């Protein structure tokens, strides 16, 4: 059984879909496009294809080939094994994605994907240039150790990535109820990309929404509160190199200012926004601030 490079094969589909969404935007006024933002997203996507060639791909292949020699089970390369691998890999993706939002070392890589204030199909391609080696080594290696062939895992994750492309759109409101329950959809993923406090740190799923429902991170889209996309402190540039390395530079500056091992651990493994004196805002504190404002608003007429 051979496994094609599904992401590369999907590139023409990506391009045609974006052009179709652009035409729909122009025709209906639904959604939002901005040229420089779209160009930045697409160049990030192109860089994401090139970056692994600088060494990470070879190193991961070597690591996985070595680990595969010591696998726990001999899982055959069959269609049912691919299905199991796909589900297990989606579970892996959920936790990688969740940790990427909750721990700054991993956020420094993933923030790139959230750095656009727009939400359209080009946003799907705004991907990191860094972190592939760390994420692959830490989160994918266990699957290899279980006994899934590395090529099968790469194929399964490729399908996962291609699936996630179409959910980056404002053109689709809601899918049928059963589909919304089981799968990640444009509605669920809009919530994930939103900076509205009530939507922060939610909906980490890749394909199956059940992980969020199981682990308490599911938040439905509220029609009364339209998502506003981006990050808490939006970037001031469309430069792809700035987008790729901004958070790494900020993390580096913070580490240079650290006065103790506790500070170093807090800056790297604490949540984004952590600071020794608590002067910055983490997601949890942003949510608290929002909840307090809501409570004050509710009490206001009675005063």
């Amino acid at each position, binding site marked *: 059984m051979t496994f094609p490079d599904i992401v590369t094969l999907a590139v023409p589909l990506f391009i045609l879909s974006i052009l179709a969404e652009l035409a729909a935007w122009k025709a209906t006024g639904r959604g939002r496009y901005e*040229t420089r933002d779209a160009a930045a997203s697409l160049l990030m996507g192109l860089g994401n294809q090139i970056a692994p060639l600088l060494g990470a791909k070879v190193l991961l292949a070597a690591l996985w080939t070595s680990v595969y020699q010591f696998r726990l089970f001999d899982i055959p390369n069959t269609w049912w094994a691919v299905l199991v691998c796909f589900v297990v890999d989606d579970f892996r993706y959920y936790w990688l994605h969740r940790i990427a939002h909750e721990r700054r070392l991993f956020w420094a890589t993933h923030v790139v994907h959230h750095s656009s204030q727009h939400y359209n199909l080009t946003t799907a391609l705004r991907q990191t240039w860094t972190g592939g080696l760390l994420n692959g080594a830490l989160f994918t290696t266990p699957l290899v150790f279980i006994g899934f062939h590395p090529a099968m895992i790469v194929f399964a994750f490729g399908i996962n990535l291609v699936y996630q492309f179409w959910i980056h759109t404002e053109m689709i409101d809601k899918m049928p109820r059963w589909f919304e329950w089981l799968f990640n959809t444009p509605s669920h993923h809009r919530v994930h990309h939103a900076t509205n406090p009530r939507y922060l740190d939610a909906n980490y799923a890749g394909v199956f929404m059940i992980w969020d429902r199981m682990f308490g991170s599911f938040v439905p889209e509220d029609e009364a509160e339209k998502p506003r996309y981006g990050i808490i402190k*939006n970037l001031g540039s469309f430069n792809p190199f700035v987008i790729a390395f901004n958070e790494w530079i900020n993390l580096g500056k913070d580490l240079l200012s650290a006065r103790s091992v506790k500070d170093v651990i807090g800056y790297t493994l604490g949540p984004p926004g952590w600071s020794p004196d608590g002067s910055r805002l983490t997601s949890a504190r942003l949510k608290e601030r929002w909840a307090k404002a809501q409570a004050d608003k509710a009490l206001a007429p009675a005063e």
Partner: protein
Amino acid sequence: MTTGLLIELGLSLAGVAVIVAATYFLGAWRTARVTPEAAAERFGFDEPDFEARGWMIGKDAKAAVALSRDGAEIGLVFVLGDDFATRRLKRSAMRLERDADALLFLLNEPSRRAVRVVAPDAAAAEQWFLRLRGEGV
């Protein structure tokens, strides 16, 4: 690097060029303008507990600045494409320069070195410069 890979990258680059050109010709190259309403709305979303004492909107509508009601912080709103970004700075740590009619807030961030707010005239620039430095009304 194999020929096949080069072809793939070349095709991807061509796809990027086609899409970017399409967005441009469909009118997606848009630049937002900062207005008092836009500045207040955007800052209100990003920093809901910041009470502005009134905004000075840049003459070129590219940025705006406000002092907080207690005078301890300043709020900045600046244009990024068809949208805005904001910054909330402690006045004590703010680095401010005056450049003719403009106020230059030095952020020294990787994504933005400075935000330039062009005052309506020299008198307004002077007044805001002193006010932000705590030397005026």
